[in-house]
């Protein structure tokens, strides 16, 4: 634990915790567009700037990347900070004048429009890198990256062609603060239901539930998770809502082991309950909810 000051208030923080998170935990809100709890801090949008005084020197730093330290003095709303933040918002507004989240932010800071000398564009991406980082750090698909540099920087699929490693999981769509990445699930196509992510020129089949027939997730996504977790082949045949795992009524169970012998995936096992008492137990990570154990049970303990 370290002690530091934010806007004059003494606060405690875990060592290594960011200044941004420390402020948030203490009810002090700092705006940000590029930080997310599940991702490593990046420091691209520059909205979360604060003044940090350390060893008698005051500098402007991004609070998302700056680790909490003993004796830091942080100020989150000095005129210098507010001016910087305003300019950044004006620049973002010039880049993306029609994005609702940017417009809302501008409103909060009392910005009606950017100065007339600034040239407006009509982009929708603010290059915060959330999608890139989610794809690389969390999903670990590595399907999209930044391309080009400087003023021409964009987020793109490799060589501006189909992102071959994309599993169409949609994490990038979910995390995008401006809504520029769009996915489309099409139910009726000649080759069955499909998910399209136009930004990465990706099109993947959606798997249909073996039971209800509803398409529920893209094939490569299910396959990737299945392989990573080392799950059996038919594991993802049912959609989430149809997946009703068998339940063992231990009061009725005789411990005969019939279900165990008949389970195609070895999901059912016998647990020792002490003495000669054994009861059937289901390990759901291997179960595909095929219910082949149900008719086997001589005492109808599985339902």
């Amino acid at each position, binding site marked *: 634990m370290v002690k530091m000051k934010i806007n004059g208030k003494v606060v405690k923080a875990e060592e290594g915790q960011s200044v941004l998170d420390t402020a948030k935990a203490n009810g002090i809100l700092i705006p940000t567009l590029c930080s997310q709890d599940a991702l490593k*801090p*990046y*420091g*691209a*949008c*520059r*909205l979360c*700037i604060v003044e940090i005084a350390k060893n008698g020197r005051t500098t*402007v730093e*991004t609070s998302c*990347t*700056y*680790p909490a330290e003993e004796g830091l003095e942080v100020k989150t709303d000095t005129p*210098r900070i507010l*001016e*910087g933040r305003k*300019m*950044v918002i004006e*620049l*973002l507004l*010039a*880049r993306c004048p029609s994005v609702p989240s940017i417009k809302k932010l501008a409103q909060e800071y009392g910005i009606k429009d950017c*100065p007339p*000398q*600034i*040239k407006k564009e009509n982009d929708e991406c*603010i*290059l915060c*890198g959330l999608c890139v980082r989610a794809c690389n750090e969390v999903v670990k698909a590595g399907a999209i*990256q*930044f391309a*080009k*540099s*400087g*003023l*021409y*920087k964009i987020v793109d699929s490799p060589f501006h062609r189909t992102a071959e490693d994309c599993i169409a999981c949609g994490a990038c769509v979910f995390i995008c603060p401006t809504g520029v990445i769009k996915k489309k699930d099409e139910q009726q196509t000649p080759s069955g239901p499909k998910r399209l992510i136009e930004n990465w020129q990706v099109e993947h089949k959606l798997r249909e539930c073996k039971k209800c027939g509803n398409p529920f997730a893209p094939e490569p996504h299910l396959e990737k998770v299945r392989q990573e977790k080392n799950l059996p082949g038919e594991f993802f045949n049912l959609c989430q809502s149809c997946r009703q795992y068998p339940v063992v009524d231990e009061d009725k169970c005789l411990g005969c082991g019939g279900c165990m012998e008949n389970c195609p995936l070895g999901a059912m096992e016998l647990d020792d309950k002490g003495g000669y008492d054994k009861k059937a137990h289901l390990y759901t990570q291997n179960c595909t909810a095929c219910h082949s154990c149900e008719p086997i049970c001589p005492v109808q303990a599985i339902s």
Partner: protein
Amino acid sequence: MKINKAEDLKKIQKEGMKLLSPATLRITVGAATCGFAKGAGKIFEALKYEVKKQKVKADVVTVGCSGLCYAEPIVEVIRSGKPRITYGNVPVEKVSELVKAIKAGKFMKDLVLMRRDEEKSPLEKGSVIKYIKGKLPEALSGIKEYRKLDFFKNQTKLVSRNSGTISPERIEEYIALGGYTALAKALSSMTTEQVIDEVSASKLRGRGGAGYPTGAKWKACRIAAGDKKYVVCNGSEGDPEIGMHRSLLESDPHLIIEGMLIAGYAVGAQEGYIYVNDRYLLALERIEQAMKQAEKQGLLGRNIMKSGFSFSLKVKRGGGAYICGEETALLNALEGSFAEPRPRPPFPATKGLLGMPTIVNNLETLANIPLIVLKGGKWFSGIGTKLSTGTKIVALSGNVAHACWVEVPLGMRIKDIVTLFGKGAASGKKIKAFQAGGPSGGILPAKALSLKLDYEQLSKAESLLGSGGLLIMDEDTDMLDMAKFFTDFFADESCGKCTSCREGIKQLKQILEGIIDGQGTGEHLSLIKRMAAVMADTSACALGKTAAVPLLSVMKHFPQEIEKRLMRRGA
């Protein structure tokens, strides 16, 4: 032969000396990139051909750049007992005549630049090459001795001491002039702390731009915990108008290797990387060759000089991006990812390459190390000024009569550098402005020529010492054009990560283009100032912080040039 102790070095020293001042003839061709650009390749081939044809017994070798880039191609003749004669601007047609003259023991009056009677090394016990034995022949007394020329008289050649003299392809010649003795000294008689103490005492500061004390950087890395540590040499050189790293690598590659070895020993690193601009093909070839030679001699690799210290070195080719001057962006590039700066802290000294403690030093900084170890930090701190010690290699370019690179003690007046070495503007007109330290240094007016070349004075003038480039502009130069050139440069070189830098430069560029087209108003100027202040405050690295400096400096020093381009109301 493996070199195991100081005596072994002495043996090779003798061999090298025989090559440097031979019993017969040595003809050298200045063959760095500047030389090749002016035809040194042809001269070298022609010399070899003529020597064979005219049956002259001579060792024809390529050497690096002596700094006289404007006089390339340079041919030098070293004959036993006679002064070393330098010929400049040698046309390939005259090679045959030159060899004839050499054979006859004469010299060619119209091509001769200077003579050298002896070569003094800055090393105390290092070797002095005495070219001349006995009296100077009467015929040669008309040629100026090089130490009497402005160009050499005013230089303090420490880092570039061997450039243009030794062949970069022969390790013996580097060792002959005291090479690797600093490494031998450090490994045999100094602790790592002692090495760092000497570097701290020298007050050497980073030659890349920021001027951070090298000793402090090393100490932080030395005490940082890590299973592995790295030394990274930044030879990326992304500034548009300089080439001193290239010249050093092409002229004296072993100096860099020795500097890195000592750095590795001092901080406890076992691996090093040299990051070199991919366009420097010759430099890459020579440093790789030098590494192989050093390895063969047991000066690189496992158990160096039987001291137990091991160090391996790798060359990594980079694209020469300006952003790679920023050490954390360089580390990202080394790791194979996007060259964007990393958040700091943590600093590379505690968490750098692959998460391990790393020192990233500029190539010129590392080139200073062997001399500091040999002669002591105190000696080094006596050169230059109190706070800016040592020397700096300066590359003069732009509208300058003699484009060249020179090594001067820090604290020398910039005006002297421009007049003594550069001989004023190439056009013969008045100098209007100049740029120091690359694009981030902005543009300074001619009256700032009276500043001294050091870290303090230049940063007080809102410029910087930076990489040591001096770009000269004469009175015909349009300052707005220059501002546009450098703003465009930043637009190309920004990594695009920070909103303030990326979008800020985009708007600055657009506003500036408007002003050049006559669309600018006073509001545009105040917006530029406001934007520049925010960019300096909120960008992550020095590139974004200084991207507005060229434009701001033109607004500050040449306001009349902008005002006359502004839109007149009602016009």
